[in-house]
């Protein structure tokens, strides 16, 4: 080690000392598990340990790709994300545009505070609310239907409803919070543009269409691309908490599968391979989407 480097290290020793707990946490809880990935290529046995377990190469991956579960998990993950892209993604944008048109400041603030609120609830509570409202027997909606002479519906145990319920939950929980970023972008729009448009006789709808939307288009495109980068991710908690045996065919996604087969049935090596497959695809998609976002004139996020 040369003298100059030593001097630099010594000069900033307290800065390194500050970062030390973070460095330790990073190493132990983020990087050590990355070595654990190697058991995807082993027949890992907890009794033999990592060093003595047998190496099997890509056997677990082959088994997974030939397994009918693979198709099911892939389809469900993709379907849930496409639903979210089509039905969830536009909601915060539309909501921001609507909020922006409100002139009564107190009303606008109140609505904002209300729609932000569900974001801070846990998925356990959101699922609990979903059950309270949609449970077959004693749910609010079915009681309402019954009172007015309609037949109750099996909302939560009908497979064809399941993806819609996930999307609906996401909209209720996150759409309001999603407006934060779009409203900020809208605030940045030059007000002179609106003045000029008004003089030209543009209606408010016309102003939204020709000024506001084009002005926030970049933000929309970047968020859309970044969302595409996470198309392999479905939140474990949301799906795990809403699923039941009646809908398992459409509810199983990679993370719930890994939890069920890996943790509950102790098939560590096989499910590490499943998890690794998901992580690698996710990693590639994020890198690609980041490139795309830069190409569209955005910052990207690294």
């Amino acid at each position, binding site marked *: 080690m040369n003298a100059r480097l030593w001097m630099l290290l010594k000069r900033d020793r307290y800065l390194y000392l500050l970062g030390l707990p973070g460095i330790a946490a990073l190493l132990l809880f983020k990087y050590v598990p990355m070595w654990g990935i190697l058991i995807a290529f082993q027949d890992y046995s907890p009794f033999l340990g990592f060093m003595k377990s047998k190496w099997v190469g890509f056997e677990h991956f082959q088994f997974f790709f030939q397994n009918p579960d693979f198709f099911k998990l892939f389809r469900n993950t993709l379907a849930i994300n496409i639903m979210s892209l089509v039905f969830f993604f536009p909601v915060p944008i539309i909501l921001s545009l609507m909020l922006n048109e409100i002139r009564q400041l107190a009303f606008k603030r109140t609505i904002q505070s209300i729609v932000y609120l569900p974001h801070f609830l846990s998925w356990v*509570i959101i*699922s609990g609310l979903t059950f309270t409202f949609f449970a077959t027997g004693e749910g609010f909606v079915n009681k309402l239907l019954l009172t007015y002479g309609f037949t109750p519906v099996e909302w939560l145990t009908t497979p064809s409803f399941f993806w819609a319920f996930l999307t609906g939950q996401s909209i209720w929980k996150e759409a309001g919070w999603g407006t*934060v970023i779009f409203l900020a972008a809208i605030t940045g729009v030059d007000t002179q543009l609106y003045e000029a448009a008004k003089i030209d006789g543009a209606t408010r709808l016309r102003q939204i269409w020709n000024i506001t939307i084009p002005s926030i288009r970049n933000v929309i495109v970047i968020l859309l691309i970044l969302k595409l980068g996470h198309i392999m991710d479905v939140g474990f908690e949301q799906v795990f908490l809403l699923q039941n045996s009646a809908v398992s065919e459409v509810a199983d996604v990679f993370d719930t599968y890994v939890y069920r087969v890996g943790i509950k049935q102790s098939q560590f090596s096989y499910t590490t391979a499943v998890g690794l497959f998901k992580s690698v695809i996710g990693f590639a998609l994020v890198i690609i989407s980041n490139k795309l976002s830069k190409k569209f004139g955005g910052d990207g996020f690294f």
Partner: protein
Amino acid sequence: MKESIGERIFAKTNFILLLVIGLVSLFPFYYVVIVSFAHPDEFIRSSFILFPKKFSLAAYQYILSTDIFVNSIGVSAYLAIVGTLLSLVVSAAYAYMISRKRLFGRRFLTISLLITILFSPGIIPNYLLIKDLGLINSLWSIILPGLLSGWNVLLLKTFFDSIPDSLEESAYIDGANDLRIFFRIILPLSLPAMAAFGLFFAVGYWNTFFNAILYLTDYHKYPLQVLLQGMLLQAETSIADPGVAAQQASEHAIPADTIKMAAVVIATVPILMVYPFLQRHFAKGVMLGSVKG
């Protein structure tokens, strides 16, 4: 300029639509509170309640006299307080370190953090690590892996980037070292940002569910969310021992739904209490990072 009829229709429609959206967002909260306070007689008699006539605190009394429930509130509060304080100090210190441009190895330390955002080894390797460390069934299994999250550290770093260097330099001249500068100058100066991140960490720990079901097996250590899952999503009201709980509940003639909703209210109240602070500071905090995200 006078508004045309079209404009006025547009404004009115928009107003009404937002009012409806607001009510839809709020209604579940309203209903939960109403049911939780509903008097057993009225709840059992009518099919569904919108405007109760008689109120009762029975469900709350029942829940707050249940040891396991009170215990889990304690666990969640402990996680929220200890976890938040530790995460805040560790994250802020790391963020401050990588925000100092003169530091040798700064780029390496930043990229090391970035990689953890982009790539995660998955559930099983994390689980095996916690197991090998002997942390299964210890609350440290929830706190320690959460100490440093890439996104939050990057947001904090962006914040520290904006603190002028001259501040640091004058402190050096007065003979302070980096530790002193960080704890005595930077942290107090960043109090609003620390409050925002602190509250955000606290909500995260309070809402912990996945790690808890992965790593905790002893129900005395269950945080609130795990207990709630048992109560809300299983058919019977089960507090620890379903049989006993159901029996007790029926003795007191409190409907299961009322108890469930009271539990939801109790679990939500702390968040509602910090919410005004969260809203004031965090919208800014999010914006701070959204420039890059």
